[in-house]
């Protein structure tokens, strides 16, 4: 579980769904929730909040610029790789702290990922949970 602490900077609501923007260090994360400021009192601009996403939901892109639909992108450097038969665990050092990603070992090979490499970690808006 990746947990980052941030502050809510914007909330966009339509019916019962909201897109919430959270600032963690200099990075802005977006998450989509079935909640509104009426149903979840913690959804207030300026509130401190934790964002949570699973290691298996982190997408790795080689290099630093990627044109994708993925709203949350953080560039960083791989500082550790633990390679298993099928899966690999990468630790990525970023401006928001260390992020763990679990991807297939095939992907690690195909992208020829190495320690020290500059990459971009990406997380879809539908994969980020909030916690107080």
């Amino acid at each position, binding site marked *: *579980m990746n947990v980052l602490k941030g502050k809510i900077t914007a909330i966009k609501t339509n019916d019962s769904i909201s897109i919430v923007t959270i600032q963690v260090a200099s990075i802005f994360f977006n998450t989509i929730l079935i909640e509104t400021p009426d149903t979840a009192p913690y959804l207030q601009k300026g509130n401190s909040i934790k964002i949570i996403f699973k290691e298996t939901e982190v997408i790795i892109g080689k290099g630093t610029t990627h044109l994708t639909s993925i709203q949350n992108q953080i560039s960083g450097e791989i500082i550790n790789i633990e390679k*298993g038969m099928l*899966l690999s665990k990468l630790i990525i050092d970023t401006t928001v702290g260390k992020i763990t990603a679990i991807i297939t070992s095939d992907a690690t090979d195909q992208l020829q990922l190495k320690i020290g490499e500059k990459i971009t970690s990406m997380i879809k808006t539908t994969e980020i*949970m909030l*916690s*107080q």
Partner: protein
Amino acid sequence: MIQITLQKELTAASGIMLLDINIHIQQGTLTTLYGNSGVGKTSILRMIAGLLQPDEGQIIVNQKTWLDTKKGICLTPQQRKIGFVFQDYALFPNMTVKENLLYALEKGQDKEIISQLMHIIELKDLQHQKPNKLSGGQKQRVALARALVRKPEILMLDEPLSALDIKMRAKLQDYILKAHQQFGLTTLLISHDIAEVIKMSDIVLNIENGKIIQQGKPIDVFTTKQVSGKFQFSGEIVEIKKEDIIYIVTVLIGSNFVKVVAEETEVQTMKIGDKIIVASKAFNPLLQKIK
């Protein structure tokens, strides 16, 4: 509205314990007393039932005073309109199911309630059986029906399901909920099974050492870190297995097993038997109609 204030010195395993509680219960709700053994849950029910005398207290049920130690009022258990179901059924072995129910009728009470109850709790096919021919779950259904014969103002269930296997438990929970809703009962349940508490109760009172330390909706009481994920279930860890570089954690939720992938640092904080919340976002699960 039911108002209950009770104080009593109890002898617990660890010495003298002062039970001191103040509860307000809305009519028609199901409230669960949750906590470990020996924290005073059963004593609370027994005092409400009039089977145990508090040192000090007041019980007012729908404006009627059942107990007021200051005014010297204390109704007998028979005068209090309660239904009680215990873990050990307590049925009359020499009577059939129907006779057990008939025996609970008040003098002059309409017998219609018996067939109504046998219908709701599905006892018609068993009505001529004696208790020793029944399974544990069936006996507990009879005990539940019997507790409802006098249309109690408060139904009290003291761990009624803890002797049953998990499948039977789920079924009995459904019967209790059905009866609770159809009769508009105010129900007090004792349980230490979080999954059961979440399924059954409107309000849970978390009791420790004779005091209520927390109360509210079960999901709020049991979720310490409120996660926004809408796909949330509470369960118990039954297996943690390392596979490749990850761990697979098997969780029992109700009577279903689910498997969740976890990472080493998460698993380090967990052990088999731990109660946990399984959470995911509402955007992830697939729905597929059962053919």
